[in-house]
């Protein structure tokens, strides 16, 4: 395992009695991009501000490249931490040119060295022709790149990006996402990237940390977080998930769409919840069935069907666009995921039995 660039232990922060962050443990390896994901108010921005040094933790410690920068006794001010930050509103200095903005963090360097550093940075983000422009003369995407160049120019130990794409329109956003990832990876930067958009997190992060109510719900690779959500919250937050109650039996889990042959370490009769994604569900026409098709949503390459189960619960099923079934048709619904389904007992994910 590579070197640890940032290590947070037990970080807690309250604002006027409101818990913003509670006991956060987080570490980022050198050269890694960690995406911190969660709904608004989950504490993701607070965690960034604590690491950057703009706020002081109520409790806990932060270690940057083996140097403690915050704990109960010690508090290193932001300017001494060696962290670069890309702000949500970019925070470009309006009275300085692009060149001067990028050069702002380069102190104690000779004039020629400064020139060279700024030039190479601007080249990296593809703005070498705009060095003499002022921020208000740039497009949103260009400002974004200046902000990134400015943060990277002093060669920080760590770059923090606070919802950096939220001010861009949708098509620019996916393009910038790709560019920024290529740039960060190209210079092997260590980065923490905060977002509320799970798709963006899956794309940008080498690993994902999901936060809710100031607590860490799960941290892992995008695949782990998506397919093996540690909590019901993560499953729900990672997108289009239906939950179905089930009861543990000797053979597996009994649900209203049939038996899931998935052994669990729980006493028989325990009540659990299964997370179902649209691709896990299929259905067949069956006259007289209690379940039926409620609606079909055409999405181009595929159709999403909304199905009503006998209990009145709704689930969604993904089907090829060629398969057309009219709303109102009675159907038999079944789950055939081809992999273990995430299963929750009192909000926490169950580990596969026997492990």
């Amino acid at each position, binding site marked *: 395992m590579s070197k640890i660039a940032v290590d947070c*232990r*037990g*970080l*807690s922060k309250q604002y006027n009695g409101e818990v913003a962050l*509670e*006991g956060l443990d987080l570490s980022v390896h050198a050269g890694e991009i960690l995406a911190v994901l969660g709904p608004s108010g989950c504490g993701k921005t607070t965690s960034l501000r604590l690491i*950057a*040094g*703009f706020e*002081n*933790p*109520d*409790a*806990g*410690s932060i270690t940057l490249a083996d140097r*403690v920068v915050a*704990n*109960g*006794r010690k*508090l290193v*001010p*932001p*300017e*001494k*931490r*060696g*962290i*670069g*930050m890309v*702000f*949500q*509103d970019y*925070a*470009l*200095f*309006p*009275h300085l040119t692009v060149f001067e903005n990028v050069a*702002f*963090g380069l*102190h104690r360097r000779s004039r020629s060295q400064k020139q060279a550093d700024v030039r190479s940075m601007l080249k990296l983000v593809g703005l070498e022709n705009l060095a003499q422009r002022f921020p208000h003369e740039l497009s949103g995407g260009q400002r974004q790149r200046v902000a990134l160049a*400015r*943060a990277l120019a*002093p060669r920080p130990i760590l770059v923090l990006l606070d919802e950096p794409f939220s001010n861009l329109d949708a098509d620019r956003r996916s393009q910038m996402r790709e560019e920024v990832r290529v740039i960060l990876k190209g210079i092997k930067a260590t980065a923490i990237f905060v977002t509320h958009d799970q798709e963006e997190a899956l794309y940008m992060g080498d690993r994902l940390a999901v936060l809710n109510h100031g607590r860490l719900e799960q941290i892992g690779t995008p695949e782990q977080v998506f397919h093996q959500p540690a909590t019901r919250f993560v499953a729900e937050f990672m997108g289009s998930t239906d939950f179905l109650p089930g009861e543990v039996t000797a053979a597996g889990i009994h649900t209203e769409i049939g038996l899931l042959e998935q052994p669990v370490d729980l006493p028989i009769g325990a009540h659990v919840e299964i997370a179902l994604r649209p691709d896990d569900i299929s259905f067949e026409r069956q006259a007289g069935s209690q379940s039926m098709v409620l609606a079909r949503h055409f999405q181009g390459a595929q159709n999403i069907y909304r199905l009503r189960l006998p209990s009145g619960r709704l689930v969604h099923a993904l089907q090829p666009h060629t398969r057309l079934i009219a709303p109102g048709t009675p159907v038999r619904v079944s789950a055939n995921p081809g992999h273990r389904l995430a299963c929750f007992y009192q909000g926490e994910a169950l580990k596969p039995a026997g492990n």
Partner: protein
Amino acid sequence: MSELLAKQSVPALDEGLAKRRAPLPSLRAVFLLWLPAGLAAAAVLLPIVYLILRATGSGASAWALVWQTSTLQIVGRTAWLAFSVTLASTAVAVPLAWLTVRTNLPLRRMWTVLTPLPLVIPSYVGAYLLASALGPRGMLQSWLEGPFGITRLPEIYGFPGALMILTFLSYPFILLSVRAALQKMDPSLEEAARSLGLNSWQTFWRVIFPQLRPAIATGGLLVALYVLRDFGAVSIMRYNTFTRVIYTQYQSSFDRTAAATLALVLVSMTLALLVVETRSRGRARYAASATSSAKPPGVFPLGRWRWPALLFCALIVLLALLIPAGELVYWLVRGLQAGERVTGLFPAVRNSVLASGLAAAATLLAALPVAVASVRRPNFYSRLFERVTYIAFALPGIVIALALVFFAANYALPLYQTLPLLVFAYGILFIPEAVGAARTSLLQVHPSMEEAGRSLGQKPLQVFRKVTLPMVRPGLLAGGGLVFLTTMKELPATLILAPYGFQTLATEVWSAVSEAFFAKAAAPALLLVLVSSLPMALLIFRDMKDR
């Protein structure tokens, strides 16, 4: 909290366990920010505290003085004047605002520019012009004397003159505030009223007017404050409101307790108004932001009312602006013919510029820490300091001057009648404007700018110098300029505190008018009017450029 602590009892975390309180400010922050901000607030409190000590020091006699019939009469007169002026100003300003914003009034753009202009006439200049026109030995009387043999005009000194001149000088406060409200008003509300069957007259009274009430209240309170603080107009009009009585007391009897007590009663009146004003302003702002509209408001056709409306605007502008301006020119020419020399004004101009320049610099310097603390470090103390400086709005110049004169005579004799003490008084008088300007410009710098500077390796002071200051500089300079120009016009504090023989433009006007040398007052008065027109001219210029 105990739950939180229990959660962290992991051995490796020992260091992080201590619950952190808000960190104490660094020594540097104390000396550069908190101490100066606190001193500025203390300076504002000095006059009031001193007056309270002064008045209570004499025990029961001060309290008895408050309840004397003569004192209560002054309260009554002052309140009555403030009320009447506010009412008259409303009656002038609301129709003007509506006509210039919402109707097809002929020459609307011109009236829009001209109607707020009386604001630039200092009150003693306005009063002087009124007295010189309508008073005994005035222009009107001398014209009438020849052909008609009229030797006496109805008395304008006293209440009628004060009411007239203060109304003409202060109605623009209501005009501007109502105009802004009219411009922001959502036109669909009116359309809704019309679609519900109201005619335009009913629409005005049932839909438009209720929405203007907060704006009228805001402007009206400013007018009332203006009247309470005014010294020049009531003095020249010889109407005994607080400011005049205090000045006479100070000059004639040097009865400190009486003057101090009267000053305190006046301050309580202005403070009460200020509190009401602050509250109503909060409401008005809310109302304005709640009704943002994309569409510009429609234009109301006046029909056959066009000409009466035009006549009304013309009459107001004539009385409040053109006649005074014409008179100034008339007296100036008369003075020049009589051998007045403009060069005689040079010392006064130099003194005015010197005192105002020092005042602007000092006020800005004092205001900056207060503003930075309140915007960037919002806590109990920074809010307290800011509010305290705001109290200065309620302190009439005469009160500050009086308190400082007594204070210096007793405790700081070397400062008595010196320029530094005068500048100090100006600083107290105008610090709210400076704090306001500094706050507004600081609020426009998003904190992320400063955080970006910190994350790029700059210390707080460096960030302030390299990032914040360049961004707020235009706003600060504008605020300083405003203080400079306002200081030039200031009369009562200058009268009382200026060093012996230190004549400024304002005191030149005053002493010439006191002796009824109307022609001699014209040149300095004209200069003052021109100087105070500068901000208005800039505003109008910017407005025209924006269009």
